[in-house]
């Protein structure tokens, strides 16, 4: 246990944890949206994220990205990467819903059938990429050189950290406005509250469900770009662990609750970085699972409660 390192650079680790957690938060939103409306764990969401990371790789190699390009090219690369990854992930998520879940909803299948189907889909997608792109780590050019922008009291804040956290907050705020202020958002909330009554009121349920899958996918695509910036590589099974942690983040904050996903993501990121510091990374992944189990045992509705969804009897 390396407490000196943790408390000696507490600020540094916290900032790093927040940046890491922002990525979890964006992926967690996808779980939370789907759970809030359909009451099911979209296990395949992790692979939606994975598709996003490979889209970033593909688009950047198409545009001939190199390490640390000039500013204009950099902005173009970021914009193109964001657009392509968000679109690819969004469409993948909608396709998952269309191919698998819609049929199961018609059959009124029990939740476990949904879950097993999602696991199968997730295996299919990650294996397809493993066969197509190889099973090794795929490098991504470092388009944005890590650079300390400012430091407060010995805590360095780098440009990637700022971009990650700000991007996550902006998208989070955008989603919040969309769900709470727009006509479509009202439809989403209505279906989450009571699907049958919403249908009677003229809300097209299938369209709302496709919409939430699309939204979750778009955010996962954005998370994929941020992941590419932060880690500089991806792999066919990158989604598995990250998806599990993002789900943990969603549960931690209160699944079905949008602000909860943000809070849960940030908290989990910080906890993980602390755990990694204390144990030289050996137990980093265990920390996330322990958090998940403890939260489920003592506060199954999460920190902020399940507000989009209803508590189930």
């Amino acid at each position, binding site marked *: 246990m390396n407490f000196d390192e943790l408390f000696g650079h507490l600020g540094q680790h916290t900032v790093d944890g927040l940046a890491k957690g922002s990525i979890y938060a964006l992926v967690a939103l996808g779980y939370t949206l789907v759970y809030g409306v359909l009451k099911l764990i979209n296990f395949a969401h992790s692979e939606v994220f994975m598709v996003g990371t490979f889209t970033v790789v593909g688009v950047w190699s198409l545009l001939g990205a190199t390490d640390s390009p000039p500013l204009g090219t950099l902005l173009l690369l970021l914009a193109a990467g964001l657009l392509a990854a968000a679109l690819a992930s969004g469409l993948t998520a909608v396709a998952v819903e269309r191919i698998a879940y819609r049929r199961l909803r018609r059959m009124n299948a029990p939740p*476990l059938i949904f879950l*097993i189907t999602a*696991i199968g889909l997730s295996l299919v997608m990650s294996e397809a990429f493993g066969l197509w792109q190889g099973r090794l780590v795929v490098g991504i050019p470092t388009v944005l050189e890590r650079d300390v922008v400012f430091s407060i009291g010995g805590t360095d804040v780098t440009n990637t950290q700022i971009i990650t956290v700000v991007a996550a907050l902006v998208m989070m705020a955008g989603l919040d406005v969309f769900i709470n202020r727009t006509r479509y958002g009202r439809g989403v909330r209505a279906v989450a509250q009571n699907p049958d009554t919403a*249908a009677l009121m003229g809300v097209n349920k299938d369209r709302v469900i496709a919409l939430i899958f699309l939204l979750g996918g778009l955010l996962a695509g954005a998370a994929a770009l941020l992941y590419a910036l932060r880690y500089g590589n991806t792999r066919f099974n990158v989604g598995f662990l990250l998806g599990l942690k993002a789900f943990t983040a969603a549960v931690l904050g209160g699944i079905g609750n949008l602000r909860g996903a943000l809070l849960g993501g940030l908290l989990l990121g910080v906890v993980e970085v602390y755990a990694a510091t204390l144990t030289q990374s050996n137990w980093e992944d265990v920390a*996330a699972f322990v958090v*998940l189990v403890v939260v489920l045992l003592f506060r*199954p509705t999460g920190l902020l409660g399940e507000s989009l969804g209803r508590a189930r009897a």
Partner: protein
Amino acid sequence: MTTTTSRKRLLNGLSDATGGIGDRFRALPKWQRGLAFLAFVAFLYYLPLLGIPGLTWLRTDSIEGGNNWAGVLFVCAVYVLIAIGLNVVIGLAGLLDLGYVGFFAVGAYSVALFGSTQSPVVKALQERFDLPQGWAVAWAICIPIAIAIAMISGVLLGWPTLRLRGDYLAIVTLGFGEIIRIVVRNVSWSGGPHGVAAIPGPEGAPSADNQVFGLIDAKPWYWLALTVVLLLVLAVRRLENSRVGRAWLAVREDEDAAAVMGVYPFKYKLWAFAIGAALGGISGALFASRQGFIEPNQFNAQLSILFVAMVVVGGAGNMAGVALGAFLLAYLPERFRDFAEWRFLVFGLALVLVMLLRPQGLIPSRRRARELKDRAEEVPASV
């Protein structure tokens, strides 16, 4: 619309056909059924020697570079054992356990850590009690230890988590499987990332001198595993038709109704978990004994999902179904090695297709098939 109905008709025809065979079999006189069963068991014991002209293409060593046929059969038998254990949890009690590989690992590591002269645990015991260098716990004692530890870990996992609703339970168990792997990799008393070697078999540590359970000839191993499978199939069958089995069924179909009728769901779920874990432990112990060497990365989450696939594709709740599923998923990649690289893709596709088209599995449990059909007819008009 017409395509859906014709597809439905096709599927119904399919299930009628498979159900029809089952019905006809059940209608036979008891002695004929017993004879058929005995003939089937005899065939299973004969399988590693398989030389019937016309059937030899089934052997995995009939292709170039194919694995030792008896060795493959042994792995199949271990997988069937796993499927039977997981079937208790998923098929009978209706709990989705995505961390079953954890119990498999616990069983394997129990035998390795207590039975191998090279394991840190045995070395510590030697030092503590002044035992000779070559001392280790005998295999025959390792097996009950493995079962006990697996069962305890099942209860320890189940105690806090079984109160969770079904889909949360699945994720927590998935996490459990990963935790076991990470713990075993990180702590020093388990051999760490290098694993443990010299795991004993029924005749002691693996060596070329072993008369029956040697390193090369896998036939005795297969016969041992098959015997264990048959005994446990009979045991689980008895369990299924007992008070406990009926309680599982009641809890699976409607937990609240079961509780009202005086069946305490938590207790029976915990039993299912413990028994499932014990069966997983036995299969892990057998696997480790035959391998002689294990390391943490053999027990990854993908394997857990493979186990679930065996049960679900075969037909959760029906022992013949899950055994068939396990056999197919273990055997096909070995026989068709050109596709070994594709196997997880194919397993994933099989999972999705079975869930979408035939959620009750290849050989369904009749009761479960009816449950699913009931639900489908309950669909409210607005969906």
